């Protein structure tokens, strides 16, 4: 079909394209030639395109700092920053997918570490980078858990640049004090008790946003109720979704949601945080990109004007997500893409990018002086050998796009109906279908 489309197309191109080409021949679609993969010896490229969904505050500044550093090291290179906003990355995903399908990849693109990269590996769209890890000695500087996670059949396909933490409970200390609460809850049971107190004081116990923030809350309720091992088992088949423990945890989720402003859920995660800042609500479960919003966008003081702790029941656990960069098969400027990955994986690169982005380096040898206020906490925990590492659901570590989309469908119904048994069986079915 596609080939016949092409043939028919040529005739059309002759007729119609001529006119429009004449009018707008300003296209700069430089394919960069057919430099064979592995051919590092060719002429140095002069262009480089990096593709990401980083456009928001914090994100884009961090990326820009890294691109600036790259430009400094490669002064003659014209750098294209192809960042697409919107839809929490879905727009970028759509553009990237159409480009990869058309065999027209950028020189490097962003993907979450973990299951999200799996389809790219299976389809042979990204190059094996194991040699780069050996050459740069990265096996000694990334934590072993992380290396295990990104290794697929003894090979590594991407370079993690940062670590975000998912299991965090943000709060307004003044609101807690006003309601007579001395400390944030350490279990979801305790949260439910506090919720009654807060509601009596006229405060919203927990704020929530659009559907992905509900999924974000779900993963952390499951983690808090089931513990690290059983939580991880949900994603490798060793924990049964239909077991009574899981169903009970799902019921807790429903109960927690009933103490949130679900009916008036905000349009995005920032407006979900606003009622906390304004003193109308107490808690919000969100990843540590929220810190950038509290501290930079709203200019609040850490610990006095806003506080954070691990989400209930997850002390000693680090629920992480991570962004990584890839080397696409057929990258038009492969030599520069490799230089870019070297920089992204280096200590200098990670320490340039992360303090601005509001995350911590995936490497264990970061300069601690750069990570102050909130960021000191995840940095200490990340490097603590005692901490238990688990991966995030909502951010692509433990479940890929297909499984996640099925969970979205089931969660939409679950949030409306509260039928935990039905949700459990739907997710179990989806898990099996996606194996």
């Amino acid at each position, binding site marked *: 079909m596609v080939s016949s489309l092409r043939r028919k197309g040529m005739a059309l191109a002759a007729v119609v394209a001529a006119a429009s080409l004449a009018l707008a021949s300003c296209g700069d679609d430089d394919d960069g030639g057919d430099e064979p993969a592995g051919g590092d010896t060719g002429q140095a490229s002069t262009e480089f395109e990096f593709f990401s969904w980083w456009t928001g505050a914090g994100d884009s500044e961090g990326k820009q700092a890294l691109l600036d550093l790259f430009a400094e090291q490669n002064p003659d290179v014209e750098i294209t920053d192809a960042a697409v906003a919107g839809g*929490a990355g879905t727009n970028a995903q759509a553009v990237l997918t159409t480009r990869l399908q058309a065999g027209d990849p950028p020189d490097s693109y962003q993907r979450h570490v973990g299951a999200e990269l799996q389809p790219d590996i299976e389809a042979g769209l990204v190059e094996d980078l194991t040699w780069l890890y050996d050459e740069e000695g990265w096996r000694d500087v990334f934590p072993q858990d992380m290396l295990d996670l990104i290794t697929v059949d003894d090979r590594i396909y991407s370079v993690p640049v940062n670590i975000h933490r998912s299991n965090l409970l943000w709060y307004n200390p003044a609101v807690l004090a006003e309601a007579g609460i001395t400390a944030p809850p350490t279990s979801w049971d305790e949260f439910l008790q506090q919720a009654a107190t807060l509601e009596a004081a006229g405060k919203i116990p927990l704020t929530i946003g659009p559907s992905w923030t509900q999924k974000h809350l779900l993963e952390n309720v499951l983690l808090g109720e089931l513990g690290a091992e059983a939580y991880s088992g949900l994603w490798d088949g060793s924990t049964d979704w239909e077991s009574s423990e899981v169903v009970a945890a799902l019921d807790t989720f429903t109960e927690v949601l009933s103490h949130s402003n679900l009916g008036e859920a905000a349009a995005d995660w920032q407006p979900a945080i606003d009622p906390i800042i304004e003193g109308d609500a107490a808690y919000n479960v969100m990843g540590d990109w929220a810190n950038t919003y509290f501290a930079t966008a709203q200019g609040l003081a850490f610990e006095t004007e806003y506080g954070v702790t691990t989400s209930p029941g997850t002390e000693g656990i680090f629920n992480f997500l991570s962004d990584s960069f890839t080397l696409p098969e057929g990258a038009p400027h492969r030599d520069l893409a490799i230089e870019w990955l070297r920089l992204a994986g280096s200590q200098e690169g990670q320490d340039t990018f992360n303090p601005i982005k509001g995350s911590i380096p995936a490497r264990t040898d970061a300069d601690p002086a750069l990570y102050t206020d909130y960021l000191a906490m995840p940095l200490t925990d990340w490097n603590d050998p005692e901490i238990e590492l688990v991966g995030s659901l909502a951010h692509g570590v433990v479940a890929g796009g297909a499984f996640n989309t099925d969970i979205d469908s089931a969660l939409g119904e679950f949030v409306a109906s509260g039928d935990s048994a039905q949700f459990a069986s739907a997710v179990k079915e989806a898990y099996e279908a996606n194996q």
Partner: protein
Amino acid sequence: MLRIRKWGPAALLVAPSLVAIGVFVYGFLGWNLRVSLSDWRGLRATYDFAGLDNYRRLAGDTRFIDGVQNVVVFTVVFVAGTLIFGFLLALLLERGIRGEAFFRTVFLFPMAISFIATAIIWRWLMSNASGAQETGLNKLFDSVGLGFLANDWFKADSYWAVASVAIAAGWALVGYIMALFLAGMRGVSDDLREAARVDGASEAKAFWHVIRPMLLPVVMSAIVILAHISLKTFDLIYAMDAKSRKIETPALYMWFTTFEGLNFSIGAAIATLLVLGIALVIVPYIWYSVRSERRR
């Protein structure tokens, strides 16, 4: 020979458009149909035949069924509402209003704003936050003593939630429909009006005489325009509350299942059903209009 000389240039003139539409509409639809009958999941395209599996799966998929319900409610409210209000606006402007051009431009203006921006404004206006967080139209209603009008808009717990999105879409398009009606009313010749009056018809009756003949064709073409916009209303819902099941339509579900879920065959099946659905409405119309023209 004579026939070719007669029809030749005509066919030649239409040929490029036909080839273009052939490839970009029917070729792509064919590709889409083929994907919908395959088992393509993941980033590597596979076209192995899977029969009607994807369609069968959709038949039992509540997210898809909810979406169909939403798009039906959306289309009915959007098309009917825009037609009614467009007609009323046209009536108001019909006979000699000073500053008509001003009014027309005001009513057309929303069409100039992209759907993404429209969604951002209306998402704000139709916020259902209460208490100190109250804002938008609800706050406006409360402050002018119309508090009973305040409601949950697109977060409402009923299948009318999606009707709120139709309000935003209607705001954008009603000016265009008004212009259509206005043109239709003006297109009726003055002689006809005069004749109706001379016949001794009352003013209202004369007016009706004038309006009626133009009503059907204008309504028909307005429905074509509105229906195809209704089908394509994607950015508006997407930017208003992506993934909210209360307002999600199959077009959005298709987008997410394709580009997030990488389940290309299911996405293609949804698209094929969308096209079939719209064909059910449109093909009879096209058939009707071509036939009635031939009778003329």
